[in-house]
């Protein structure tokens, strides 16, 4: 490699007052040597240029040597998880290329790209294309994909940590395997925030074929200040709660200082309420307040992001929708409402402020109840120790594989033997066995073994030459429409009755409302007029808000990393060491817990039993996160119910769970150990949960991705209505007539792994088996028990038959009617 291109790049850095960091130079030379790798570091530390520099230097080299005469097609592909990021990326990549005198076109290709721009890109491909995983998949579904990608030299995956662990990540793994087959010298580079499983992340990115691969650590993280908003000493801190608005006054004071602020909440419902409360508190801030969450119309969100960059906002209330690396200039302060839930997430949010070199990143955490103070201290501890959560990647998602195979069938067809080998080079499908592969092939050709007898199904056909191709153009265009569906939830649009799009909202929320009901959405009070054609028609409501949408996904469990640090802090408190200010603020409360019962510490499971007018309560604190607790509570209730039939009311949070029943004597240690035994876990769990109902819900995404749900034909409106069916109906139909369908099994597996975190549950039971049990009969609710008791979302478990359940509900209805 000649020296000159390096000089050009260094000069461009120098012009801007920068010097290339060592990790950037490392990445450039690794790329120059033809290697692949993963660069991880904090937001805003120059990761993009570390990855982009390699291809730029190569381009400059070729341009100077005049050696470059390539086949048509882009040479660099830049994958971003969010189309909202594409525009900014194009701008900054273009700037760097132009800055070193490289005449490269950088263009974006996303769902928003116009038809004419796409046509131009096909005829005259740009040197670099910025795109999303879905649009990449679409590009692979065109017949000329193999010639188009043949000259591809580098693919760069931005924010890889955001895709890892999701089905979009699996989709991208498959696409990358395809690209490597089409362009054998392809280098793959990923950019990621710090993760607990970076090696695995690298492995997923490069596939099993790649040897080695560089893991390049970026700039050392800036110091991060994690603080809690401590309550005034004279005010009692609530033991339970979920909004945290009692600290509104203090937060408003904090916001009063000059500068901009991002206020993060954990749920969209919380974001709506905080936005509304802030407005009520300070109506003079109207212009300077913004609301940003995933359900709000994209153009509105983009306006807020631009406003943030321009410094027009005093405060933007946001959810995880702003967790991604949208490249706006940093704000002055970041506030986190409620539990941080995980170290990685808190650090990423904190990274939103103070980007200037040497500047501090800091976050002020506003606990919504007392014990969340411990979580803040725990997050600080974990961060200092460099502990960060892992993101386990998904494996063997046959729905995604089916979609990908149809994509390949549409794009020139595929040879089954070569494709199986290719698919197995991915981390996700390395363990794909022959029968699962055969089943998937059968599924896309004749709908699976059961449908073989019905020649009316045609999607993919096997030709004389053994290649699989899409059956006709209509199937191909229908499939292309469905490619972008991995991300979307079952969402329906919210529109004003007179027109005007507001955003999207989960169907399950709207389904509970009736016309005339008022709900809070996008910071506005809206009245539901009617729901039709997947649109909720609304008008502005004069009345005050009633319902606040409860979106799914907001209830992330406390991470294992954080949970074990919490236990560690409680163990210190037990010995009278109160080193952290948050723990000091909690000292009276923790001492009360210690006095009335015991503190949960590593190696000890605390169990409390108490009697109230409601019945007998059993509280258990395994600290395994709310999802695992839901499974544990149900398991325990079911096993108790096997001893003597009973009906339990169940409440869970991140620390533990409660069982409430009219008769539930305090179990002795031997009984408890038997009830919490790790053996027969899966069988008992499946028997205890309404597993098929859960799987039916999980099937929604699977059905959509695998192409079981009709997504419409281009240009065909309502005539396609007779092809509409809910995923629930499809689930029922398949369960009845094709019970061995592997997608049903996948739904059950996803329920166990994702909805119940069965691995964590298993670990918790193993820990309990080794722990000492500390059982206490308490006179009243302890500080740990109180939030569980106050938890309003209660489940009920009963071992009664279905018919009896109907009868019981009817009975209740009748009694209710009798009262009124």
């Amino acid at each position, binding site marked *: 490699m000649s020296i000159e291109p390096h000089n050009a790049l260094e000069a461009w850095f120098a012009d801007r007052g920068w010097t290339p960091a060592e990790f950037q130079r490392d990445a450039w030379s690794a790329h120059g040597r033809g290697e692949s790798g993963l660069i991880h570091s904090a937001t805003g530390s120059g990761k993009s240029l570390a990855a982009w520099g390699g291809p730029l230097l190569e381009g400059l080299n070729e341009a100077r040597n005049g050696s470059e005469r390539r086949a048509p097609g882009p040479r660099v592909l830049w994958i971003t998880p969010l189309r909202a990021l594409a525009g900014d990326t194009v701008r900054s990549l273009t700037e760097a290329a132009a800055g070193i005198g490289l005449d490269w076109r950088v263009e974006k290709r996303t769902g928003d790209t116009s038809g004419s721009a796409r046509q131009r890109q096909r005829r005259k491909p740009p040197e670099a294309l910025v795109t999303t995983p879905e649009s990449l998949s679409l590009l692979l579904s065109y017949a000329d994909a193999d010639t188009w990608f043949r000259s591809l030299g580098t693919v760069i995956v931005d924010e890889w940590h955001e895709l890892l662990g999701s089905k979009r990540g699996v989709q991208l793994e498959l696409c990358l395997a395809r690209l490597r087959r089409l362009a054998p010298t392809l280098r793959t580079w990923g950019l990621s925030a710090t993760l607990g499983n970076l090696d695995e992340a690298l492995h997923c990115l490069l596939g099993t074929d790649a040897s080695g691969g560089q893991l390049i650590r970026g700039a050392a993280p800036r110091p991060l200040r994690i603080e809690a908003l401590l309550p005034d000493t004279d005010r009692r801190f609530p033991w339970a709660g979920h909004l945290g608005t009692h600290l509104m006054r203090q937060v408003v004071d904090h916001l009063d200082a000059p500068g901009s602020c991002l206020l993060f909440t954990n749920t969209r419902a919380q974001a709506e309420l905080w936005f509304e409360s802030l407005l009520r508190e300070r109506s003079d801030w109207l212009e300077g307040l913004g609301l940003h969450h995933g359900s709000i119309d994209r153009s509105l969100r983009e306006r807020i992001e631009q406003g943030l960059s321009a410094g027009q906002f005093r405060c933007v209330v946001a959810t995880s929708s702003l967790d991604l690396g949208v490249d706006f200039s940093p704000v002055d302060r970041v506030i986190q409402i409620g539990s941080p839930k995980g170290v990685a997430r808190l650090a990423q949010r904190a990274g939103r402020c103070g980007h200037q070199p040497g500047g501090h990143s800091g976050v002020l955490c506003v606990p919504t109840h007392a014990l969340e103070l411990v979580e803040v201290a725990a997050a600080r501890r974990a961060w200092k120790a460099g502990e960060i959560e892992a993101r386990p990647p998904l494996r063997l998602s046959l729905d995604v594989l089916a979609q990908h195979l149809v994509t390949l069938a549409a794009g020139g067809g595929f040879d089954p033997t070569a494709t199986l080998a290719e698919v197995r080079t991915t981390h996700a499908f390395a363990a794909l066995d022959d029968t699962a592969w055969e089943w998937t092939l059968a*599924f*896309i050709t004749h*709908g*699976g073994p*059961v*449908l073989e*007898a*019905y020649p*009316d*199904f*045609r*999607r993919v056909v096997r030709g004389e030459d053994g290649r699989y191709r899409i*059956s006709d153009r209509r*199937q191909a265009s*229908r499939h292309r429409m469905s490619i972008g569906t991995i991300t979307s939830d079952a969402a329906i649009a919210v529109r004003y009755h007179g027109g005007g799009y507001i955003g999207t909202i989960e169907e399950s929320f709207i*389904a509970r409302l*009736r016309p005339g009901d008022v709900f809070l959405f996008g910071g506005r009070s809206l009245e539901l007029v009617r729901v039709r054609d997947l649109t909720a028609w609304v008008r502005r409501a004069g009345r005050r808000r009633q319902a606040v949408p409860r979106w799914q996904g907001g209830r992330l469990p406390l991470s294992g990393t954080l949970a074990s640090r919490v236990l560690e802090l409680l163990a210190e408190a037990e010995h009278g060491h109160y080193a952290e200010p948050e723990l000091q603020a909690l000292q009276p409360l923790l001492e009360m817990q210690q006095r009335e019962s015991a503190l949960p510490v590593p190696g000890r499971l605390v169990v409390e039993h108490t009697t109230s007018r409601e019945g007998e309560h059993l509280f258990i604190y395994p600290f395994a996160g709310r999802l695992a607790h839901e499974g544990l509570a149900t398991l325990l209730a079911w096993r108790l119910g096997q001893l003597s039939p009973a*009906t339990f*009311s169940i409440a869970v949070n991140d620390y533990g769970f409660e069982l409430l029943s009219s008769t539930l004597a305090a179990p002795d240690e031997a009984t408890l150990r038997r009830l919490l035994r790790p053996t027969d876990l899966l069988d008992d769990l499946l028997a205890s949960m309404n597993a098929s109902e859960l799987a039916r819900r999980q099937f929604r995404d699977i059905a959509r991705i*695998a*192409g*079981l*749900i*009709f997504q419409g034909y281009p240009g065909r409106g309502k005539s396609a209505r*007779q*092809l509409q*069916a*809910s995923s629930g*109906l*499809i689930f*029922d*139909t*398949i369960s*009845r*007539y*094709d019970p061995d*369908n592997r997608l049903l099994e996948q739904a059950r597996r996803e329920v166990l792994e994702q909805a119940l975190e069965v691995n964590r549950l298993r670990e918790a039971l193993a820990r309990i088996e080794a722990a000492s049990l500390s059982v206490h009969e308490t006179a009243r609710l302890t500080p740990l028990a109180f939030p569980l008791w106050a938890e309003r979302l*209660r*489940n*009920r478990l*009963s071992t009664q038959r*279905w*018919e009896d*359940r*109907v009868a*019981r*509900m*009817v009975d*209740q*209805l009748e009694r209710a009617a009798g009262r009124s």
Partner: protein
Amino acid sequence: MTATTVELAEHTLELLPARAVWWAEQATLLVADLHLGKAGLFRRAGLAIPEGDTADTLRRLSILIEQFTPERLVLLGDILHAAPGADGGLMRQLAAWRSRHAATPMLAIRGNHDRGIEPLAELFDWHLEGMPSAGLALRHHPPRDPGTATGPWLAGHWHPAVRLRGGGDSLRLPAFVEWPGQGLILPAFGSMTGAHTITARPGQRRYATSGERIIGLD
């Protein structure tokens, strides 16, 4: 178990847990919304839905016919899910089923899904919306505003269902909806039919069916 009945224009109609109505004095069995051939249509569009719904629907209907030996079977619309044109299998299946019950007259109201029904002209006695029968109007679509004085009528089309809740538990069941003295909507009979949840409203009564019994709700 006592039968659940509703009174309509001095006729007594028994609601059957099998999602049908037995009109004893006319010896008439009524069902709505069979949506035959639905899975097949989905497959032709490239959606991998297994077969079984049509056979199951016809089998359940045969059981009812054999149990009640009606003098007349009334199908309240949407017998087919879509025009049977390309689906030769469905036509053969349906013709075979019809000949099995050749002795039972079958009257069909044409529903919005019943398009391209010419091949079925011989199988059923087709009628338009609102066909009168002993003082009752047989319809597919319920009247626009079923609560007002429109009756008496029997209809389908809505695929009504109700959601039962209690103690954190929740179930969705197919249902009949009655406007006393005015009309009655039947649940969808087909095995692969979606449903539309009906909430409680004044002037209307809902009857859920668990498959084994009828549960009056309002």
